[in-house]
């Protein structure tokens, strides 16, 4: 997957690794039921000050319900939510130190852009001069200074999105909730806005919690991601952790694309695991600490870009991590090509190869016999 990691993750502190750091938002064993349907199932989460945290999941995964509970629009059936140490159970939405940016933007159509942004400040009885100044600052932040007098329907989709952001930020909330903030924009604008959003978040220093179904969006923007599935959290981690070290088949398949080889653990040592896979028709050697007892059924996940595709046989020792097959499909995307190879066992494997040189003639073509191989660190052993 061609995801640009923002450089900030290198310079940034990682408060979740510090055991003395107090979480800013604490979600404790929260469950939400609508009738018989459990939308959020026993979720516990700690989010730290200044984080850009993403709740990532498909539709019905409970991510929006969780966000709405943080905003106060839904009450947890069980469990508690703390923001900055204060229990939010009996705090109504209009008294929470939280603001939300809605998926539909929810701009008030009968008010100008300025009045929309000033609305929250008026509720707090802020002085007139200060309102004027803060609205101007907010408009400036989202580069819409000359649009203050317009009505929402006189703006383009991208501009509306920025007004919604300004309106949510102007009250300087402790926590900003964003429900699919880029969902209504077209692809080009979305990519551009991703970085803008990250920059704005760094400038204002407010903790962001974003709900998204778009994994690329989550990977680009977030400090950490919680992958949600059917109401529970499948995995929490940095984008790299989630992508490189998925903890389950669900996360591995949800984020990017992946090849799964079914097999059985043969060796489980502190420095490696060895898996016998009939699907791949070879032994799989994974150089991560083994934590599963030998004999257990498991899956080895290997990302398509970590597999090398060659016409000549590779020189890996003992035939581990290598397979042979026939090229069935090729998709040329310009920057990379995707190959789908049918192994001799019948298993289909997806491989992506970057197009480093410019060639009109492809070196590998349909029905070629090819060798696939990958390094010991490439795989992940999954048991669930």
């Amino acid at each position: 997957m061609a995801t640009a990691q923002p450089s900030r993750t290198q310079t940034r502190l990682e408060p979740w690794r510090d055991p003395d750091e107090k979480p800013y938002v604490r979600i404790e064993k929260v469950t939400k039921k609508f009738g018989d349907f459990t939308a959020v199932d026993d979720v516990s989460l700690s989010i730290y000050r200044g984080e850009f945290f993403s709740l990532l999941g498909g539709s019905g995964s409970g991510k929006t319900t969780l966000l709405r509970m943080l905003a106060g629009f839904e009450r947890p059936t069980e469990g508690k939510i703390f923001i900055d140490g204060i229990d939010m159970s009996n705090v109504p939405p209009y008294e929470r130190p939280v603001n939300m940016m809605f998926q539909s933007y929810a701009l008030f159509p009968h008010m100008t852009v300025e009045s929309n942004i000033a609305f929250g400040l008026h509720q707090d009885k802020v002085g007139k001069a200060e309102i004027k100044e803060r609205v101007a600052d907010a408009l400036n932040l989202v580069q819409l200074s000359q649009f203050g007098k317009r009505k929402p329907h006189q703006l383009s989709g991208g501009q509306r999105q920025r007004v919604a952001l300004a309106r949510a930020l102007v009250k300087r909330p402790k926590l900003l909730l964003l429900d699919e903030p880029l969902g209504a924009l077209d692809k080009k604008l979305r990519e551009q806005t991703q970085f803008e959003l990250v920059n704005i978040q760094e400038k204002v220093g407010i903790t962001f919690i974003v709900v998204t179904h778009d994994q690329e969006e989550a990977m680009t923007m977030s400090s950490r991601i919680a992958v949600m599935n059917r109401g529970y959290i499948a995995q929490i981690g940095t984008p790299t952790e989630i992508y490189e070290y998925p903890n389950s088949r669900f996360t591995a398949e949800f984020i990017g694309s992946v090849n799964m080889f079914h097999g059985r653990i043969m060796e489980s040592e502190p420095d490696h695991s060895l898996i016998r896979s009939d699907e791949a028709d070879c032994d799989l050697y994974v150089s991560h600490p083994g934590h599963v007892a030998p004999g257990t059924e498991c899956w080895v996940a290997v990302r398509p870009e970590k597999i090398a595709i060659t016409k000549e046989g590779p020189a890996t020792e003992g035939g581990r991590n290598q397979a042979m097959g026939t090229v069935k499909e090729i998709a040329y995307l310009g920057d990379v090509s995707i190959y789908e190879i049918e192994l001799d066992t019948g298993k289909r494997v997806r491989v992506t190869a970057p197009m480093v040189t410019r060639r009109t003639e492809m070196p590998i073509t349909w029905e070629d016999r090819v060798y696939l191989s990958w390094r010991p660190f490439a795989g992940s052993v999954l048991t669930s």
Partner: protein
Amino acid sequence: MPKSWFLRAGLLTGLLFLYIPIALLIVLSFNDNRSVSVWSEFSFRWYGELLRDDQLLSAAWLSIRVAFISASFAVVLGTMAGMMLARFGMFKGRAFFSGMVSAPLVMPEVIMGLAMLLLFVSMEQMFGWPEGRGMLTIILAHITFTMSFVTVVVQSRLVSMDASLEEAAMDLGARPAKVFFVITLPLIAPAIVSGWLLAFTLSLDDLVITSFVSGPGSTTLPQIVFSSVRLGLSPKVNALATIVVAIVAIGIIAAGIYNAQQEKQRRRDEQMAQQGS
């Protein structure tokens, strides 16, 4: 698309079917003959006589007052009921409430009128209010049945309105009452206005329910017209009807012009948004 003769003929038949009776009525209102159906010559005679008929004018004034007051109350109650049905989720007894609110839409007017009469009579017997039948009882009855129409109009507007607008206002710190007056009310104003107009019109021309609950000395316009028809049709009624048609026509044309201008403005705004992006 070339219009076929069939479509043209269909349109013409439809228009004739709808408007011949009204056109005939307008033409006959300018007839100088005492007999309604015999044309003699053009005159404004019946308009003059209409203005001198105190009974008819006071009935018209009563009808307008009744319609104004009952429409205003119906709008308040109907908006409250509409909010309840559209915004408060599945509260206990919602289906029952919804059915009760919309019952007057389908209930035969005769039954409504009879029920109202019985209620007023027994209320008077029990605690002496309302005293007799008159304007008050007519207004109460009209509020009851026009409220349902307002509820339907307001509810459908609320359902089509993005509920996150109200949530956003609340999220920004506005309490529920403030959210209603600052956000919800301005946005459903068009529905409230059309609900009011609908209630006003329904009240103005209601005959059946009014006949049950009106008393001596409180005769509405539809009652006068209806009873005068039974005594022998006076061309004065034609003149009155023509005036009503004229008022309605002016209202419709004004609304049409206003809508066309709004549409033009909206298109200009959209173009501006496209260029501005």
